[in-house]
């Protein structure tokens, strides 16, 4: 969202306050994934995040329609603050109902709220993970799911902590690159059909 992206964001805010409905769709497209990622990270509850995303978007659009954003270039920060507030409110409500069972974490993929995109991204990530060395997969699992630190992982796997750090960084980079490459290949294939 740098350079021309920032200009686009500015324009969107102004157009929404002028009553342009197409600009509202643009806003949803621009921010949905970012908001959803934030909500998932803060609430650790993808299902609730899906509902909260709608609330955040509605709140942002209502405010923009009413012209409550005085400086259009501050739109990202404005959206961000509403998303944070909604996440906080949700966490407060949940802690009040803390006798209820805590939701199961991460059943749905939190990277997007679009089911097709979720399925695509998950398929790409699964393939990328399958191409990793078994030890690297184990390191990622222990880091991202068990929350273990490199020292603990190193002891369990008989490696040095530095080696664990290196392998972890390389594994994350490899997954990211594979996902990007596979995604580009898929889109290339899609284009060849259209």
């Amino acid at each position, binding site marked *: 969202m740098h350079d021309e992206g920032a200009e686009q964001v500015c324009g969107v805010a102004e157009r929404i306050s002028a009553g342009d409905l197409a600009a509202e769709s643009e806003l949803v497209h621009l921010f949905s994934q*970012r908001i959803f990622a934030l909500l998932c990270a803060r609430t650790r509850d993808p299902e609730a995040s899906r509902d909260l995303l709608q609330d955040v978007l509605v709140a942002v659009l209502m405010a923009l329609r009413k012209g409550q954003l005085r400086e259009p270039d501050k739109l990202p920060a404005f959206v961000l603050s509403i998303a944070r507030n909604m996440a906080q409110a949700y966490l407060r409500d949940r802690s009040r109902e803390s006798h209820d069972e805590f939701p199961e974490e991460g059943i749905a993929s939190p990277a997007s709220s679009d089911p097709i995109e979720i399925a695509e*991204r998950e398929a790409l990530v699964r393939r990328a993970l*399958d191409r990793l060395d078994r030890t690297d997969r184990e390191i*990622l699992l222990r880091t991202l799911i068990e*929350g273990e630190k490199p020292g603990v992982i190193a002891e369990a796997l008989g490696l040095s902590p530095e080696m664990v750090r290196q392998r972890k960084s390389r594994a994350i980079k490899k997954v990211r690159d594979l996902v990007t490459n596979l995604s580009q290949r898929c889109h290339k294939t899609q284009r060849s059909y259209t």
Partner: protein
Amino acid sequence: MNCDDVQEQEIVEKYVTGRLSGGEAEAFEAHYFACERCCEELQTLQTVQSVLRRRTKAAHRPLQARWLAAAAMLLVVLGAAWWAHRTGSLRQAVRIARRESPVRVENARDEALALLARVDPPRYVRSVLRGDGQERFREAMRQYSLADYGAAAAGLQAVAEKDPQNSAAQFYLGVCYLMEDRNSEAAERLRKTVALGDSPELGHAHLYLAKALLRRHDTAGAEVELRQAIALDGEQRQEAQRLLERLGAVSSAR
């Protein structure tokens, strides 16, 4: 905060595992809201986390669920046996129960190889392609999902002719031919998939090519393909490893 800080301090990883302080998390959020690259990285890592968590859950599925699965399988086998009793064709019944592809058998060693060459068609996950222009591929894969491999092969052949670089079409066409016992054509398509290089189908293409070669009694060629499948270390690795061990046992028993 900038992209270099994010990389050097492993901010994304700490963010998704909840190890950032309140201030750090807010700084990162303000950054990734305006940064395409870091946002993409965050989404990828959140998906990795989700996929790994689901795999962990599946691995620790309660014993009860596994018993239910075993009971369901037993029911299928008993049903097949009953059907066999009614028709007098155990081989046919087992084939229906396993939905296996036909393999010609002539002697004991061939029978052992045929067992190794048996193919369970890989499940097609409709997640790679979308859009309006690839209806033919979708329709072919719909036939594939319905186990109508003849119809699926016809559709996939048209797709593969139009776009020979389409690894998915080449691969599934190869599998369809295997299911139809058209082993030379299967090997040809699977070789084409392999020749396309890195693709989502590459690992499985080596594995199924090995099976196609086994059906043609080319055990040496099959071994080469299985080793390639193992070296890629994907989800096909375990099956390729097992197959290679059994192939070794069959070969040494000659």
